[in-house]
Structure formats: structure tokens, C-alpha cells
């Protein structure tokens, strides 16, 4: 509801409306920005990229003839040269943490020391299509053969290429986890924090999105966005090329195709020309990405962002360990247990993200309150009551005056934030304007509730009907115990063969 309202308000005011009061994603100090372009008409044929961690000195990589496999893998080898040092840069700086884990022999829960990387390098792309492209690049490179794998391999690649593929695959897979921050799209970040007066689909255009967020003095966001999307120069090229990976067809047909033809003909200076052309398409997006980042960094960071970033650090560390242990690349398809585990983990993370964002940000909480999933109000009275039993525990009744209309019934569990954790209560009575709850925990061990654990009349409270830190889901069986309903254990782990060559590989 609030998002719709914000969009309508943005449309009226001509300027994007904030959806949040804080930044809900982790933004590291030195993320690597990767702006890729792909070749029209051929899947996974990169045309070029700008990549780097410094706004002023990106590295330009260009494939002058994208259909040439040798040039393509030279590009990927060069990309690996630039990206891998960044991607492994966090691998050696570790903390040691104590974790409770299940002992594989005894099944008992024991404390073990685990290394976790202190920071994880981030990768930023302009838009969601860029995230998918990272996934595609990972898929196309992680099974490439090196000369060490097979001396008879006709087209060996340097070993850093499949290694890059494994990292990109991990980052792209992690990006599917809600709230994860290893690989982020700038349009995704911006549209989480601002609502524009255009559709969600149009928000995928980075230039148009920023035109709404920072509209020029002359004219509002709608005019500026339309200009960014459509204005062309005298050659018919867009002033603001698309943020990729797809290119503008006019650019392809009018200028790129002739330049590539010149390269094919072996004319002098042709490669230089293609490089300049590709850079002309990448540069504006590069600048927009940094402009968007600068805008995001103006926001204060949400209180629970660091806690969620820790899961990203564990994810990063886990992949580092798998690479170090010499495990094979990620399989083409998940087995039944892995797929189920990923789905369940993502659902838990989604619930955690939704809860954290609401707790960190009154504007997001307002959305949940409007949806009837939370209510805020002033404590009207507190009546101390006790549980039955031999050792009565405090179970105070708290009456909260509220203007919200929560969807609650007596007996429902609600939660409020108390000193960094959630205090639980049970709804006793709901009537228009008033909710009575019975606090049920976190009041200390004694007969009298601990200091500060029970609100006083006049306090402002916010209860939610969703849990603040959703519990992890039930365990799954190990893959080798996959039941008959799901096809039984996956076949004897055939070592992952590299992709077979097809006629296309020899075009």
C-alpha cells in the first residue's frame, strides 16, 4: 500500500519518493563494479566490459570479433586476471568463531572452531540482467578444460578461467538468496530504497531510474526519464545507452557491425575503433553506477544489516573452503536434497529480511502495520499477573491503545523488540483501538520481572505478528539418503565431465 502511494506521490511531484529511512543492504568500502555488454543474437558472447574498484580507472575489456572463440576466451582470461584478485582478496583475513555443530560420529552437538572471513568482496552490476549475465558467464566458464585437465584438449584455457567461473557461479547463486549482498544490482538497490513514478519494469533502466531520483531542475522525473530512454544524437545513437548487457540495436547496426567488419578485413586501426565504440556504450553506465552508489551511501545503514552480512561472509568462506579443498565445480543441476535445502534456506532468509527491514525502519514497519501484521501504540495500563504453578512467573497484562487495525485473534503470538532480541506476548483481547497482550518471556528468572523488561504506562510500543528472527527449518536428509519418492540417492557421483564439444564450438 505504501509503495503504491509513494509511486503516486512520485508521479505527482516528479521526483522519486523514499521508501526507506535507512540503507537495508551492506555496501562495502571497495566493491568491484562490473558493467558487461553482450553480443546481440548469440547467447553468452561477451562484447566487452568495464570493470574495476576505482571510479576513475576502470579496466576496459573488449572482444573485437565476439564470434571468434579464441578472442572470447582471451577476454575471459583477461577478466579473470582483473576479477580473481578481487574475489579472493578476502580469503586470508579470517576470524575464528566458535560454532555449535553436529558431530558426524556421535550426533551430539559440540563446539567447533570455524574460520570465517572478516570481509567478503562485493561485486556490483548495473541491473538484474547483469546478475543473470554473471550467472551465464559462470556457467560457460566453470567447466572449461585446461591443459592440465587434458593435454589433448584442442582449446585449453588458463586455469584461472574455470576458477573465475566457479566464483561467478557462487556469487550469482548467492544473489538468489533474499537480502544477500555478495552480488548486487544497482537498479535493485535503488528501487528498494526509492519509488519512482514509473513501473517496476521501467525501473530496470538505470538511467531512467536515476533521472527520477535526481531529476534535473528543468522538468520532473517523467520528462527526464523519457529523455534518457529515447533521446538520440545526430547519428541516431542514444545519448544514454542501455545499461546492458544487451546493446542498442541502432548502435549494433549502424556503427558496431561496420567496425567489426573492418576488423575482420584486417584493416589497420579497426581494433582501436571497436574498442572506442564499445567504451562509448559502457562509459555512461559506469558513471551512472557510481552516481547511484554515491546516492545510496548518503543513507545511514540499518541496524540489522551487519547481522545479515555475516551470512554472506559465511557463504563466501564456505565457497573459499570448497575451492581450497579441491572440490569439483558446482554441478550443472542441483540434486533433490540440495535444491530443497536452497529453497528452504531462501524462504527463511526472506522472512528474516522482511522482519529485519521492518524493525530497522519505521517507514517499512508502517507498511506492515497497514497490512495488519503489526501494531504500534501507547501503553495504557499494565496489570501484573502471574502464571499458575508451583513457581509463579510474571505474566503481566499490557493494554496498548492503537490506531492500527491488526489482523489478530486472541491466542495469537506477537513480538516486540527488547534490547536487541524479541520479547514474546500472547494476545488476550482485541477490540477497535485497544489490544491487550500478556507478556510471556524475557522477564528474568525471579518472581518480580527484571528491570526494564515490562513497559510502563505511556511507553510507545510496536508489536509484530511475525517473528523477528525466524527459526531455521527442519533438517533434510543427506543426499546419499534421498528417499524413493525423490528418485533415491543421486547416481554414483560421476566425476563432472566437462561440457562436450558441439559443432558450434568449431564455427
Amino acid at each position, binding site marked *: 500500500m505504501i509503495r503504491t502511494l509513494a509511486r503516486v506521490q512520485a508521479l505527482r511531484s516528479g521526483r522519486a519518493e523514499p521508501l526507506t529511512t535507512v540503507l537495508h543492504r551492506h555496501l562495502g568500502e571497495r566493491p568491484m563494479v562490473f558493467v558487461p555488454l553482450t553480443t546481440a543474437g548469440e547467447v553468452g558472447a561477451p562484447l566487452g566490459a568495464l570493470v574495476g574498484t576505482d571510479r576513475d580507472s576502470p579496466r576496459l575489456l573488449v572482444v573485437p570479433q565476439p564470434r571468434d572463440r579464441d578472442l572470447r576466451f582471451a577476454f575471459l582470461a583477461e577478466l579473470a586476471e582483473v576479477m580473481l584478485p578481487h574475489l579472493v582478496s578476502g580469503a586470508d583475513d579470517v576470524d575464528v568463531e566458535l560454532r555449535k555443530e553436529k558431530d558426524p560420529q556421535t550426533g551430539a552437538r559440540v563446539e567447533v572452531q570455524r574460520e570465517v572471513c572478516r570481509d567478503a568482496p562485493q561485486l556490483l552490476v548495473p541491473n538484474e540482467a547483469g546478475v543473470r549475465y554473471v550467472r551465464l558467464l559462470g556457467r560457460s566458464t566453470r567447466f572449461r578444460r585446461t591443459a592440465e585437465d587434458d593435454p589433448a584438449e584442442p582449446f585449453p584455457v588458463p586455469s584461472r578461467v574455470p576458477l573465475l567461473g566457479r566464483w561467478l557461479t557462487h556469487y550469482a547463486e548467492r544473489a538468489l538468496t533474499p537480502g544477500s549482498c555478495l552480488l548486487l544490482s544497482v537498479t535493485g538497490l535503488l528501487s528498494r530504497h526509492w519509488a519512482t513514478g514509473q513501473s517496476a519494469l521501467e525501473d530496470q533502466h538505470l538511467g531512467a531510474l536515476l533521472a527520477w531520483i535526481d531529476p534535473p531542475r528543468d522538468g520532473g522525473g517523467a520528462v527526464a526519464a523519457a529523455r534518457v530512454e529515447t533521446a538520440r544524437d545526430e547519428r541516431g545513437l542514444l545519448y544514454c545507452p542501455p545499461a546492458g548487457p544487451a546493446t542498442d540495436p541502432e548502435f549494433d547496426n549502424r556503427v558496431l557491425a561496420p567496425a567489426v567488419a573492418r576488423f575482420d578485413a584486417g584493416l589497420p586501426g579497426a581494433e582501436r575503433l571497436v574498442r572506442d565504440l564499445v567504451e562509448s556504450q559502457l562509459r555512461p553506465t559506469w558513471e551512472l553506477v557510481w552516481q547511484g552508489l554515491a546516492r545510496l551511501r548518503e543513507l545511514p545503514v540499518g541496524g540489522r544489516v551487519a547481522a545479515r552480512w555475516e551470512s554472506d561472509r559465511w557463504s563466501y568462506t564456505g565457497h573459499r573452503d570448497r575451492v581450497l579443498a579441491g572440490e569439483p565445480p558446482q554441478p550443472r543441476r542441483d540434486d533433490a536434497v540440495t535444491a530443497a535445502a536452497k529453497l528452504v534456506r531462501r524462504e527463511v532468509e526472506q522472512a528474516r529480511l522482511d522482519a529485519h527491514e521492518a524493525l530497522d525502519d519505521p517507514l517499512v514497519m508502517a507498511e506492515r502495520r497497514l497490512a*495488519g501484521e503489526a501494531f504500534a501504540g501507547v501503553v495504557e495500563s499494565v496489570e501484573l499477573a502471574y502464571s499458575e504453578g508451583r513457581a509463579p512467573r510474571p505474566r503481566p497484562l499490557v493494554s496498548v491503545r492503537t490506531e492500527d487495525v491488526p489482523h489478530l485473534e486472541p491466542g495469537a503470538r506477537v513480538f516486540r523488540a527488547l534490547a536487541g532480541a524479541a520479547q514474546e506476548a500472547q494476545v488476550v483481547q482485541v477490540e477497535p483501538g485497544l489490544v491487550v497482550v500478556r507478556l510471556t518471556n524475557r522477564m528474568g528468572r525471579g518472581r518480580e520481572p527484571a528491570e526494564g523488561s515490562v513497559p510502563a504506562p505511556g511507553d510507545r510500543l510496536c508489536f509484530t505478528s511475525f517473528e523477528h528472527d525466524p527459526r531455521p527449518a527442519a*533438517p533434510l536428509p543427506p543426499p546419499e539418503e534421498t528417499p524413493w*519418492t525423490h528418485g533415491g540417492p543421486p547416481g554414483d557421483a560421476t566425476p563432472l565431465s566437462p561440457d562436450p564439444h558441439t559443432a558450434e564450438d568449431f564455427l
Partner: protein
Amino acid sequence: MIAPEREDGDPAARAASVTERILADTLHGTRRGVVVDSPPGAGKSTLVVRAARELVGAGERLMIVAQTNSQVDDLVKRLAEQDPELAVGRLHGSDSQPDPGVARLPAVTLSSSAGDLAQCPVVVATAAKWAFVQDVPVWRHAIVDEAYQMRSDALLKVAGLFERALFVGDPGQLDPFTVVGAEQWAGLSYDPSASAVVTLLAHNPGLPQHRLPVSWRLPATAAPLVSAAFYPYTPFRSGTGHGVRRLSFGVAGDGSAPDRALDIAAESGWGLLELPRRRTVRTDPEAVAAVATLVRRLLDRGGVTVSERGTGPLTAERVAVGTAHRDQAAAVRAALAERGVTGVTADTANRLQGREYDVTVVLHPLSGRSDATAFHLETGRLCVLTSRHRHACVVVSRAGVAELLDEHPSTEPVQLGVTVRFPDGWEANHAVLAHLAEHRVRYRP
């Protein structure tokens, strides 16, 4: 794999013969699984209870998996009704106490630990609870209830607990869902977001599959429409013929549109109260008021139901309101309370699944909308809403739903390897609308 059914003959005899075959496959079959498709109100719970009792009678121990706590409680109560001596274990989560009605049953043992229930020949719990059960001997038999609403990953967590199982469910109801994207597994036989039965049959293609042929809930006026709209290739019929079920009112209608809609519904089994075309917010106040007015009149007019079970007054407990969204249900509850109506259930399709009432009032999922999303078009949603009643169903809707459907054909991407659900929601919606149009009353509040 579905055995052909003859359309003629005594429905009770046909249903009984199918049940015999199901029980034979369950008790003496050689395959590890048996799948039973059950249309709305076809006696699924009766079958589960009967299969459980026969298995216990044959000296077996079994576990029953249901999907929600209320389904588990209902099953336990039905088991106790049929066989008060049968020792049933009700396994529950540590922070979700079972219904007090279950706790009072003498032969039922409650526990949050499966180890405590080892002596019970039947143990019932939700799939979510079973998933936490570990280190217990494997059960030889299991019954999985509402298997089409169970997600594949939930089955994966519990399938290690049993050797063989009877899977019972209604393929026409709501599919399981996930709030996060699962496209990356679309087309895999074990797609974790798919229904448990889809995964089971993909991996065990030769399993015996049966279909209950008779709906005992739906009246003769409703079964043909629900069957044609939602089960076009697996038709079923009603257990009662025309004229067996009757709904009449002690108080004559006052000529208002809601009363006329009620009269038409009493006569024909269906009614459509159509409000003027308009785009509205989800909790359309006029539509919600129309729903509440209908319910109020329904109770005020002293309805009497006549059925094969006898004659009785239409009470609030036998009336339900179905909506697509929770906020709509909340708005309806508030409107009912304003009109002094108590005891009428108002809930979403998801929560009405498996429930039965005499009369239902449905707020059409597409009423007043400006778009038709996959959620609102989902076949199962409309199927649940239009198949909960024993006597009549009145739909409240804004005009223009047919045009809305025409403007929004399904645009879901086609995924390779995914079985296409048929009919799709678009077609089913049109089929239901076309039928409702014959029972339309225009209403200008």
C-alpha cells in the same frame, strides 16, 4: 493410469468399488505407493480413516501426515469417532498445543516427542512436525493426506520415515507455493516447489492411481459445473440427485437485489450478485457490505435445509464467506460484526480448503481489479471457493470480470519439462463466469 469409470449406476456402489480397490492396493499391493485423487467432498477423510483402521486391523503400525494442525486435529477426532478404542498418538509441536477437543479424547495420547508415542498403532502429525522426527524405527505404512497441497521438499524431509504410503488429495485445489523464486528448478523431476504427488509420480511412474468418482458434498446443481470447469478430464458426479437437497426460506424476499440473489441461489444452487463495474481497492467497501448484507439476510430469513441427512435450520455455523486475501476476510468479518452477525466463518481460500458448509458467499477474486495476476487466476483458488457448499453458493462481484480476463491472457513463461496444468485458471474462470451469468442479479447499493 486412471481406471475408466462408467457414468451410470448407483453412485454409492461405484464409490464403494473404488474404495475396495484402493484398500486392496494399500494393504496387499506390491508397489510402495498408492495415489488417490479425490474431487471436493468425495469422502477423502472417510477413506483415510477407513484405510487407517483396516491397516491397524491387519496388525500394522502407521503414521499419518497431514498439512496443518487443524487438519490433524480433525483427523484425530474422526478416528476417535469411528473407533473410540483405537489408541491414537497426536504428535504436536512444543509451542502449538492441539485443539482442547482432541486432548479430552480418552484413547488419544498427546506428546511433542515421537518416542513417547511408540505404543500407539496410529500416530498423526503435520508434515512440518514429522520433519523434525529422527532416530525412530521406520514405519511400514504411512498415509499422506492433502498430498497435492504438500510441497515436494516437505515430502523429502519425511519420506525416510516410512516404507510405503497411501497418498490422498485433491488435484484441483490450491497448489503449494513459495514466496521466493524457484524457476531455477522448474522442469526437474524433484523441483522442490512442486507438489509432492508430482515428484512422486515423476520418479515412480507405474504407481497405482485411483480416483474417487462421487462428490457427496456438492449438490447435483454444483457437481457438473465444478467437474467441467476444474476436472474436465476426470469428471465426477454428485452423490445426490436433483431435488434431494433443498434450501427454502421462512420469510419471503423483500424484493431487494440481495434477496433475489438468495432466492435464485436457493432455487438453482448458484447466485451472482453483480455490482456496477468499477476499479476498487482490494477491500472494496461496497462489495464487502454486499457480502455482509447477503449473509445477514440469509440468516434473518430463516433458511431451512432439506437433504439426505434430514431437515434442519440454516445456522450461522453452516455458512461461510470465502475471499482471496486475508485483508478482505478481515474486512468481511468487521462488516459482519457491525451487522451483529456472529458464528459465520469468513476466511481465505487457503484456509477454507477441506471445509464444508451448507451455503457459501464468495467475494470473486477478480472483482474490481485492474489486472488479473497469476495469484488471482489460480485455478485452485476459484475451485476451493466454489466447492465448499452442500446447498448453494452466492458469488459477489463487480461487473466486467469477463472483460478483465480477456485483457489479461496468461503470460506465464512456458518452462521446459513442466507438465502444463489443465485447465488453466483463465479458462476455468471463464467457465464459471459463463455459468454464473445465468443466475445474475444486478445490484446498485
